[in-house]
């Protein structure tokens, strides 16, 4: 088995050899080793992508907008991912972004995971029929089948910034809270006097 460090190093060097700058290659190394840790086939997707760009110059969006596409070719997942994390403040304002025709979209996932960390919010990703959710660079939730996929091109990738909201109703929360109070000791007059540090009145 290749170690995470080997995956990082080889992906970085391969990215440089594929024509990316060293600084971008460093990001690619980190990204591929991170999605491999989540069980997604980063190395396979990257290797296939590099074969397809031997004779073309990959490009990303010049600006991050609601709808992003290139006129004459597909978007590069690496340049697109970098633009997303470099412009994360703009992304957070736009909320929902669409990318038309994007090569090897699974390679975008680690960048979106990083983006989620930078913004501090979960991000939902839809790659044509596949859904995933990136959570503050700590995990990627997705259909199990995503682990076996090599996706050459997505017609549409939609990313939606999810607001930080509770996942449960206030009624459920209150019920759970009530149960938790059963670990508390009932207060008495004596405990009010002696059980805490400060006085009952601290108007000094």
């Amino acid at each position, binding site marked *: 088995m290749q170690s995470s460090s*080997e995956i990082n190093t080889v992906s970085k060097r391969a990215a440089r050899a594929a024509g990316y700058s060293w600084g971008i290659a460093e990001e690619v190394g980190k990204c591929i080793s991170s999605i491999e840790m989540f069980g997604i086939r980063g190395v396979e997707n990257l290797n296939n992508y590099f074969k397809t760009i031997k004779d073309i110059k990959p490009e990303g969006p010049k600006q991050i907008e609601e709808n992003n596409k290139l006129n004459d070719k597909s978007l590069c997942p690496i340049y697109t991912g970098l633009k997303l994390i470099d412009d994360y403040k703009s992304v957070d304002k736009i909320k929902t972004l669409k990318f038309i025709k994007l090569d090897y979209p699974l390679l975008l996932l680690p960048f979106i995971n990083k983006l989620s960390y930078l913004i501090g919010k979960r991000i939902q990703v839809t790659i044509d029929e596949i859904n995933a959710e990136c959570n503050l660079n700590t995990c990627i939730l997705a259909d199990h089948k995503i682990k076996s996929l090599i996706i050459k091109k997505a017609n549409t990738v939609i990313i939606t910034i999810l607001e930080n909201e509770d996942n449960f109703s206030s009624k459920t929360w209150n019920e759970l809270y009530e149960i938790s109070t059963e670990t508390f000791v009932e207060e008495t007059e004596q405990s009010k006097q002696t059980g805490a540090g400060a006085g009952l009145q601290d108007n000094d």
Partner: protein
Amino acid sequence: MTINIQHRDPNQIMKLSRLGCFHQSKLSFLRSFIREFKDWEFKNEIFDLDKEGYGTAVYSVSNKERTYSLVCFANKLDDAERSDRVIATKWDAAFVIHDGLPSKDDIERLRENVPKQEVGRCSFKELALSRANRSVRVFNHVIDSLSNGIQPNKKLLTEVGYLYRTTAVYGSGKFGLADRYRIKDRPEINGPFRIEMMLVYLVRQFTFDQVNHIAHKKSPNQSVKLDLELSRQLGIGNSTGLGMAPFIINHPALLHQWIYAREEALKQIREIKNVSNDDFEMFKKLLELSKKNVNNWNTNSEFQNIKIAQLKEDIQKFEENYLCNMKVDKEYFWDELYKWVEENLTHEGVEYIVSLMMEPYDNIISLLVPQMSSDEDKYFDIPANRTTDELKSSIEKSYPNIIEMDFSIDKSNENFWYISKNKEEPRLASRFEEPGAELEQPLAIARDIKELHDRLSSYNNEKLSKFLQENTDLRHIVRRCYIVEKLPYAEIQDNSIGSELMPIDMLRLKLSFFGAQKFDPRSDKWLRICMYQGAPLMHEINKSNDTWIYN
């Protein structure tokens, strides 16, 4: 009255000419390894060698919660095949640190792979990998002497300093070894290179057990064991080439933590108001003892011999002109001493005295050692929402000398760093005489900083994200600027590709933090060193004194 000493200026300390004068200290990793593991149980589990000393041995290091094992494979090697170069494919012995006690199946798996080193595969159950060659000068002499019932020549042993020389020690995910993240939360390895230091320490014990075994098999009735005092004076040699040099550029956060620990120790010591007589006496005693190491420092390198002569001269000057008149009754004694040293001695002498000043202060050093590891990932992200003007100001503050360098002249660009195809190891070559410069590694930090600073001049307080999009070739160097902004000792403040570069300065910096002694440059690109000379033996480690390096 208290005084507030400032840390030394990174723009002075981080020059290669200064870093290349660093010496071992109480912060060094092999010393902190012994302090950390001295209460663990060290044991020989398997010793299955034939009469010529070939076979398998396993040593364990355990406490109640965990066991680490060194698995050794000693193989026959023809003299013609013995080479310390990284291009070698066979060695006298190969070693691996296994996490836990290895099963029979583990040992068989390792036997198939460990002797092959870079072309074998380890698993996540292994933590460090190494190989070593015998010192031809010493090994046979020791066997002959012991088998004839006499001890070997002490002078020869002292001169060489070891029975075996390692030629590489790999860790952290190389060749399938466990990634650092798998073990980083273990308290006993909360210091850099702990596992590698463990490997070298146990290999040292194997070399003694092996010579005793061979001598006994050769002459069962007459042989004697290697004298314990002679054994203590032997360490493990190491041949180190350029592989180490890029490491300190590629791990800026880690480099900062190492240098910062040294600078913080010096600051705290200089701030001591009343120095005790005991602490001063300890300093003087260890200075006296340390002169033995300096006097036994043998090398054919003219470069190193000049430095050794400087050091000897510095020590003499310090003793005769300063130390002999000093008493500790003055407040801030160490601060005054340091100021004299900085003003009157060369860098060799200054850094030597700085290392010795740390010796009495377990209380200061023990808190700094655990901070000498670092997670590079914490500093990886570029704050692309900041502005180009902010970045330019930051560069002017962090790299004042580098932005004054002239990279339009050839001698500033003389060299380039590359990775060799056959061994995947770093190399240095002349840009104007050798091929491959188009495949240069991103290690020309000073040149790229200067270029970044120049290009930023044409931007007017714009978002950095725009700059990054238009200057993708400088993304790696923008990242470094933000690391150095937070971690001032993260960068070597020198030109790593200029014609005056001495790569062995970079090697010595790293090896001094390892705790190596007797730097013996064999060219400007590789050197030999000795580790653990004077260290306690395995059976006595729990009684060891932290000043063993001066024994």
